[in-house]
C-alpha cells in the first residue's frame, strides 16, 4: 500500500463490552483486535528510521519491528520479536500507560493519532497464546549460579525470566499462595484476566524458573539465610504493599476497607464469586472510594460490579491532577461512577453496631502549587456536608512493606523505608543484593518495575559471573 493511503487510515478503535452490560460483570472490558483490525492498524506505522517510540519504552521493545511483522500477517513472529525484550507482552499490552511512554512519542500523533502500539502488543500476545504456539527461546548453557528472587510481581518476574535465559538457576519466593504480585491481588479481572497472568507465569516455569509460593522472606528465611543456603545473588522486588490510611475518625468502622484489602478479597481470593469461593466481601449499595489513581478506579469499578447503586469517587483535587490513566477515568465514567472532585473526607460516621453509615466531607479549592507541582487543595471553610454510605474504600496510596528491610542488616533505606538502589544496576548497600520496582521507587507502574528488573538482571548476571 502506498504511503499516502496508509496515512489516511484512522486509528482502529478497540471493540469493548457495552458499559451498561460490563458494569455488572467481571469479564474483560476491551475485547481485543481482530486479525484484520490489527493488520490495518499496523499499516499506520510509517517505520521511522529513528523510532522514538522505542526510546519511550522502559524495556526497549523493537516496536517498528513487531508492527511490520503484523502488517505482513506474521503474528507469531511478531510475538517472538516482542519477547526478545519483554517477557510479559499480554500483561503490558493491557496495563502499560502507553499514552505517556511509546505512543506519546509516535510521530503519527503529531498530525493525527498515534499508532495503537499497546493494542497491537496485546493482539499478538493473545494470538500466540490462543494458537498454543508459545515459543520457548534457547536457554544459554547452565552457569551453575543460583539466584533468589524475592517477590513475584512485575519486577521479580522480569528478573527471573532474564536470568534463567542466561543459564542461571532461578528461584522466586512469593509470600502469597499465587504468583504475580500486584498483577493477581491488585489489578481486577476485568482489566487483566488472571488466566493471562497464570499463562505468563507458566511460561517462566517452562523456561526453568522455580516458584516457591507461601514463602515470606524475612519470616521463614532471611536474606542472609538465602546466601547461607548457597544463593549467589538476591533480588528484592517486594513492592509497595502497605496500605495508607488518612488517620481520620471512624476509619476502623466496619465497612471501611483499604483498597488493598478490597481488591485482594475480590481479585486474589475471588470474593466476587462468593459463596462458590469461601472469602466474603461486603457488597455495598452506596460506596465511597477515596482517591484519584488507577487503584481508586479499580476499586470503584469493582464496587459497581459487586452490585452498588451508587459509587462515589471522592478526590481532593480536580480532574487535571488525577493520577489515573485517562482510559481508566473514561471507563469509570462510562460505567456510572459519580465523581466528587475537590472533595475531601474528614470523618466517617458509624451506627451503634460499629458499621459505617456516613461520610463527612469538605469542599476544596485549588491554591498554589505544592512539592509535586500540582496545585494544592485548600479546604473551603464551612463547606462540610454528609453523604450516606455503607461501604468506603480508601485508595490513597501505599507504602513499603518492612519485612525484608527489618531483617537484613546493612541494607540501606530512605526515610520512607524504601530500599536505596542504584538506578542503573539495582545494586543495594549489601553485596550481592539487588532491588527494583516499587520497593525502590514507591508506587509506580508495572512497566517501570519491569524496566528496573531488566537493568538489575543485567547487573546481577555480570556480578555472579565475575565471582
Amino acid at each position, binding site marked *: 500500500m502506498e504511503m499516502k493511503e496508509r496515512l489516511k487510515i484512522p486509528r482502529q478503535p478497540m471493540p469493548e463490552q457495552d458499559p451498561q452490560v460490563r458494569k455488572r460483570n467481571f469479564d474483560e472490558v476491551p475485547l481485543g483486535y481482530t486479525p484484520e483490525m490489527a493488520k490495518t492498524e499496523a499499516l499506520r506505522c510509517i517505520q521511522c528510521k529513528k523510532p522514538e517510540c522505542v526510546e519511550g519504552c522502559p524495556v526497549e521493545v523493537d516496536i517498528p519491528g513487531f508492527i511490520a511483522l503484523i502488517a505482513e500477517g506474521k503474528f507469531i513472529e511478531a510475538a517472538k520479536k516482542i519477547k526478545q525484550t519483554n517477557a510479559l507482552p499480554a500483561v503490558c499490552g493491557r496495563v502499560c500507560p502507553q499514552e505517556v511512554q511509546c505512543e506519546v512519542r509516535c510521530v503519527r500523533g503529531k498530525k493525527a493519532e498515534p499508532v495503537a502500539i499497546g493494542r497491537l502488543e496485546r493482539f499478538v500476545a493473545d494470538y500466540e497464546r490462543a494458537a498454543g504456539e508459545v515459543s520457548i527461546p534457547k536457554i544459554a548453557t547452565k552457569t551453575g549460579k543460583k539466584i533468589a528472587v524475592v517477590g513475584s510481581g512485575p519486577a521479580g518476574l522480569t528478573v527471573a525470566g532474564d536470568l534463567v535465559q542466561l543459564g542461571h538457576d532461578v528461584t522466586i519466593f512469593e509470600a*502469597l*499462595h499465587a504468583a504475580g504480585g500486584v498483577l493477581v*491481588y491488585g489489578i481486577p479481572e476485568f482489566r487483566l484476566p488472571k488466566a493471562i497472568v497464570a499463562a505468563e507465569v507458566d511460561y517462566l516455569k517452562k523456561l526453568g524458573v522455580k516458584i516457591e509460593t507461601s514463602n515470606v522472606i524475612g*519470616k*521463614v528465611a532471611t536474606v542472609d539465610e538465602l546466601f547461607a543456603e548457597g544463593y549467589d545473588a538476591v533480588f528484592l522486588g517486594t513492592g509497595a504493599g502497605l496500605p495508607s490510611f488518612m488517620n481520620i475518625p471512624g476509619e476502623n468502622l*466496619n465497612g471501611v476497607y483499604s483498597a488493598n484489602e478490597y481488591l485482594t478479597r475480590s481479585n486474589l*481470593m475471588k470474593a466476587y464469586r462468593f459463596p462458590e469461593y469461601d472469602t466474603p466481601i*461486603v457488597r455495598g449499595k452506596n460506596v465511597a472510594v477515596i482517591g484519584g489513581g488507577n487503584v481508586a478506579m479499580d476499586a470503584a469499578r469493582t464496587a459497581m460490579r459487586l452490585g452498588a447503586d451508587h459509587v462515589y469517587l471522592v478526590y481532593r483535587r480536580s480532574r487535571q491532577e488525577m493520577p489515573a490513566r485517562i482510559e481508566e477515568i473514561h471507563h469509570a465514567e462510562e460505567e456510572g461512577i459519580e465523581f466528587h472532585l475537590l472533595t475531601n473526607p474528614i470523618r466517617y460516621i458509624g451506627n451503634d453496631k*460499629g458499621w459505617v453509615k456516613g461520610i463527612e466531607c469538605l469542599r476544596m479549592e485549588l491554591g498554589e502549587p505544592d512539592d509535586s507541582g500540582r496545585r494544592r487543595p485548600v479546604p473551603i471553610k464551612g463547606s462540610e456536608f454528609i453523604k450516606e454510605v455503607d461501604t468506603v474504600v480508601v485508595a490513597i496510596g501505599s507504602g513499603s512493606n518492612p519485612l525484608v528491610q527489618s531483617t537484613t542488616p546493612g541494607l540501606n533505606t530512605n526515610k520512607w523505608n524504601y530500599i536505596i538502589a542504584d538506578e542503573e544496576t539495582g545494586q543495594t548497600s549489601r553485596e550481592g543484593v539487588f532491588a527494583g520496582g516499587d520497593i525502590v521507587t514507591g508506587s509506580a507502574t508495572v512497566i517501570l518495575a519491569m524496566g528496573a528488573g531488566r537493568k538489575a538482571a543485567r547487573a546481577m548476571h555480570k556480578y555472579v559471573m565475575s565471582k
Partner: protein
Amino acid sequence: MSAKILEKQQLSDNVFKLVLDAPKIAKKRKAGQFVVLRIHEQGERIPLTIADADPAKGMLTIIFQVVGKSTAHLSELNAGDSLLDLVGPMGQPTHIEKIGTVACVGGGVGVAPVYPITQAMKNIGNYVISIIGARSKDLIIMEDEMKAVSDEIIVTTDDGSYGYHGFVSQALEEKYLMTGNKKIDMVVAIGPVPMMRALCDVTKKYNVPTVVSLNSIMVDATGMCGACRVTVGGKTRFVCVDGPEFDGHQVDFKELIDRQRIYLDQEKQCYDHYCTCRQQGKGA
C-alpha cells in the same frame, strides 16, 4: 508450600489437633507466632496460632475449634491428607523474659496458643501460675500439657462441672489478686474476646501488666491489607505484623468485637450451605 497432615486428634467436641509436616516453619517459629493456611483452591486463608513444634522432626502442631465452614472442612481432613497452602511463621514472637511470677490464662481453645508461651515462660525461669477454663468439663483441653509446664494450675468451668466454678478472670482475682497470696508480675491471656476483656478489667484494677493475643480477621497476614487493624492506645495497629500480642489495657475491645462480626451473615450462609451439601452427600 503445601503441608501433609501427619497426625490428627480430637481434643473435645469441636476442638481438633493436627500435626503437620512443615520443617521450614517448625525450625523458625517462636512462641506466640501463627500460620495461615488454605485447604483447597476455592478456600479462604485462615490464621491459626502455632500450638507446638518439633524442629528436629520438622513437625508443627495446630489446634483449632470448628466455628465455620473452613474449620469444619479442616476437621474432616485426616492423617495423610495435605493442606494446599501453609505459610509462616507470621507475627511477632512473644517477648519472653524472666520477671518473676507470670500468670498464663487460657479460655476455651485459647489454651492452645497459651501453651507454648507458658512453656517458654517456665523454661526461662519464671514461676508460672496457669489458669485454664471452659464452659464445661468436656471442653477443657490440654490440662496435662499445661500442668507439666506450670508451678500451679487452676482449672475453671462456667457451669461448675469441674474445678473452680466461674470464669478465669474471677479465679485470678479471687485466688491471687484479692488475697495478695502471690504477687503476680505479669499476665498473659488468650481466649474469646469477652474473656480477655473481662480479664483485663480485673488486672487493670490491680495494676498488673497484661498481654493479650488477638485473633482478628486477616487476609494476607503480611501487613498488606489492614483487615486486622485494631486500636491500641488510640493508635491503629495491624494484628498480623505488629501483633498478635498487645498490652491488653490499651486495646479497644468494643471495636475488636464489632470488627470480628463483619462477615457474620456470610460466614453463616457459607457454613449452612456446606452442612446442607454434606448431608446430601454432595461434598462442598
